């Protein structure tokens, strides 16, 4: 097909992943003896596994949104969105593997002086969740049993993953089919499937986040948690789409994509950053204001032990996009956009880090070679897989009923 991964891109990706791997191994070697090593390793796989999966899933959501709302302008960048979404296939496998290992190890604890500590999911450990005679038994967690059990966790997780996988496959298949067949039948089907996906995703994005992330702090709860993680997910996906778009434009592809399209994606980054900040503020302010101990502990713990990461990621994810992307010119300037996107991606990674690490590692969490290395390995795999999907189909869709609107897009 028209797009080929250039040897330069290949080299860069392999170099990133290789350097990452080396750092990761150094990280392992230097931390092997620490008491928290196992927890730290699992936490990182959960963080990166979820972060990159969510990036792809957000793109799948955006794709469905474009179909369901019959949006015209975005048709010309449809293949880019599909490419980012295609990583869900890898993301699902990775995340399921992480969950499987944690499940087999009953929550991934370390035994210290006969005590089970450093769980990823405390509720998976029978000593805590179901053994009434144990000294570590926690009735609060036990009371959440019908929801927080391995059986239920796995049933719903498989339903979520199967749904995401099948919808991705379906959208992609029909997208390529439309190139050949034309007509409006495929378009109407995409419209219906898009709406259906949004409904399922509307439920799953919340319920899955409770199981996968919120249960890391099994005592704590927040009704907004699901929408909050969703907001971050969506924002990150838009930055990934933007980065890919700019990369392809720079290399002379996508001649029909003009700066109005880029401006529009930039607006989405701006808007979703605000959405995330709004949800962050809503959850934070209400718990801070009411100051109920079992609720506010979540924030006081983070502020006391991770002040730099906690406040830093809020500043990065809110202030930077707000100040820089406010102006129209910035949203049309590839250099500025590229820089902002990279910063936002790091900022939202730190957000996911904040969702997981304080719950699993307590006050011992740090960012070192291990974290940086694993992130780079994942980033390399993600980039390679996404670019590889791009090589499989023409970059510009054909026969989409709104293609003409998109080609003549000007704002």
């Amino acid at each position, binding site marked *: 097909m028209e797009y080929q991964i250039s040897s330069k891109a290949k080299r860069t990706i392999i170099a990133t992943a290789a350097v990452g791997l080396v750092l990761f191994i150094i990280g392992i070697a230097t931390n092997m003896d620490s008491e928290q090593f196992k927890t730290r390793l699992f936490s990182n796989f959960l963080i990166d596994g979820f972060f990159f999966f969510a990036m792809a899933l957000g793109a799948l959501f955006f794709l469905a949104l474009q179909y369901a709302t*019959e949006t*015209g302008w975005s048709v010309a960048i449809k293949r880019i969105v599909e490419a980012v979404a295609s990583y869900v296939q890898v993301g699902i496998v990775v995340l399921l593997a992480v969950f499987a290992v944690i499940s087999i190890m009953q929550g991934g604890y370390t035994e210290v002086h006969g005590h089970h500590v450093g769980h990823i999911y405390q509720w998976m450990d029978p000593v805590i969740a179901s053994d009434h005679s144990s000294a570590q038994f926690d009735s*609060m967690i036990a*009371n*959440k049993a019908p*929801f927080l059990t391995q059986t239920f966790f796995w049933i719903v997780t498989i339903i979520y993953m199967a749904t995401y996988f099948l919808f991705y496959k379906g959208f992609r298949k029909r997208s390529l089919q439309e190139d050949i067949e*034309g*007509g*409006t039948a495929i*378009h109407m089907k995409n419209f219906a499937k898009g709406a259906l996906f949004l*409904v399922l995703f*509307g*439920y799953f994005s*919340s319920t899955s986040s*409770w199981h996968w992330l919120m249960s890391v702090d099994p005592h704590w*709860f*927040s*009704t*907004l*948690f*699901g*929408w909050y993680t969703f907001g971050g997910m969506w924002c990150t996906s838009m930055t990934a789409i933007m980065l890919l778009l700019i990369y392809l434009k720079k290399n002379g592809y996508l001649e029909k994509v003009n700066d109005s399209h880029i401006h529009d994606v930039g*607006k989405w980054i701006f808007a979703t950053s*605000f959405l995330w900040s*709004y*949800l962050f503020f*809503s*959850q934070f*302010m*209400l*718990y801070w*204001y*009411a100051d*109920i101990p*079992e609720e506010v502990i979540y924030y006081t713990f983070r502020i006391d032990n991770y002040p730099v990461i906690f406040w830093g990621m809020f500043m990065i994810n809110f202030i930077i996009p707000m100040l820089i992307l406010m102006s129209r010119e910035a949203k049309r300037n590839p250099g500025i956009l590229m820089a902002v996107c990279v910063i936002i991606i790091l900022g939202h990674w730190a957000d996911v880090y904040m969702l997981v690490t304080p719950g699993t590692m307590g006050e011992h969490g740090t960012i070192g070679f291990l974290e940086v290395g694993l992130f780079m390995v994942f980033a390399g795999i993600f980039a390679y897989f996404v670019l590889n999907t791009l090589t499989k189909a023409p970059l510009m869709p054909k*026969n989409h*009923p*709104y*293609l*003409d*609107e998109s*080609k*003549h897009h*000007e*704002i």
Partner: protein
Amino acid sequence: MHKEAAIREPLILGHKTYSDITEDVCRPIEGKAPKAWYIMFGISLLVGLYGIGCILYLLGTGIGTWGLNKTVEWAWDITNFVWWVGIGHAGTLISAVLLLFRQRWRMAINRSAEAMTIFAVFMAGLFPLIHMGRLWVGYWVMPIPNQFGSLWVNFNSPLLWDVFAISTYLSVSVVFWYIGLIPDFATIRDRAKGAVSKKMYGILSFGWSGRAKHWNRFELVSLVLAGLATPLVFSVHSIVSFDFATSVIPGWHTTIFPPYFVAGAVFSGFAMVQTLLLILRKGMKLEAYIHTKHVEYMNIVIMVTGSIVGVAYLTELFISWYSGVEYESYAFINRATGPYWWAYASMMTCNVISPQLMWFKKLRRSLLFTFFISIVVNIGMWFERFVIIVTSIHQDYLPSSWSMFYPTWVDIGVFLGTLGIFFAFYLGFARYFPVLAMSELKTILKISGESYKDGSAPTHDDHGGGGDSHTEAAPVVEEKVAEPAPVVEEKVEEVKEAVKEEVKEKLSDEEKSKRVSSLMEKLGAGDASNADDLKVISGVGPKMESTLNEIGIYSYEQVSKMTDNEYEMLDSITESFPGRAKRDDWAGQAKELMNK
């Protein structure tokens, strides 16, 4: 240059010209109001006056005339306040958020929705003012230094944030609405015959002259205001939700409140827009501009926001159990099974189940059904606030103080009164203001107008009729008729050819003239000397007029005699727009025009 795909449904039905838009919007303002308007206005005014009477009685007697008691010290008034503020969300959402999303269908509904927003916010503001007791020192809610008699306000209180949020929202909404009105006021000014109305609309239009520079500034300001108004749409109801969520009351203190209140507000706001617009389009004959597609879009918004609200209800319910906080669980069990179960049941059916019916295309395109659901949703959203407020506090931590809340006649009277005042305002608006954004509609006429999309419009634009020249021209001149996507176009052409051939085969010239003469027999002969302007009939363009004249139809009287039989005959003779005449009820329209 903008393109619009052929498969998108047209937003302006029939063949309309720029002048038609001006005529259709200005006609109700320039003519006499129908009897129905006076009746509705009278009733609203009476109910409103009754409400004002109740407020005065309340002020004279004291807040004890409300049904509040020591446990439920916040009930009916705050419910109404939140309900009205919620309704006041749709207008600015439509004009600001949909502007940013470049939704062209908003242009037919934004003006009246914004008016509704502003009136609804007025009504909302009344309740806290009354509740504070002394209306005449209402300005004490502002941070005024102590020497003016008030106490410095408490900035920690979300109730004060409400004051700032709502007053900012109201002022931006009013400015936004008014800016949009200026060019349309100028059009009315230029057409006005009476000296008084010319003067009045002249003042209102700020000396608008329609020059390029004016349009340039106009569009710039609209965009900036849209950017400002969008965060306000979110902030207002988020802050209203903080009134409850910042507290430590089970059932109130939950983090999902801000976004879920916003979704609920949009939900109820759109329902109210539907209720009002379905009446307005009929009463003011704006069916060509606000038609099934607009209603369908709004129903989809109702469905989506209704579903978001539904997800939030279920999330709250789940977390109340998951949290393990027994008071939290009790609050929700009490809602569903306690003495106010009927309020909870109404809320659930009206808000969660009824919008799901909009998944059926038939239902969401049915105007009657939409009207019914829009009222159901507004009832449901009123109950939602009642459930959140009253059932969360009537059985609190101390069982000995548990009690029930029953509204008194004053409670009910004040609420009815706000409904009356609201409708009176709205009817006044419909009478004296351009209810559609004329200048904006003109920008989409040639992109989304039916006759421009299907190519039946004459290629040379006919500007005649209106008589108003410079404000008439649409700001965007560069628009061209959309080129339909190639595949669809081919299909359409194929079908058209097939239809034409079929008709031709059936109808010889001889047959045609026979039909013409039998048609004329029924309608009576007419002549060109006393011809009426048939273009006034909605659905008749200049092309159709000349066709009718060719047949021999010149006057309203002739058209008014048409029945289904004649429509069919006419269709077979003209071979264009089958079913058009019947759908638009030409005879009925002509009858009315005759009586004018």
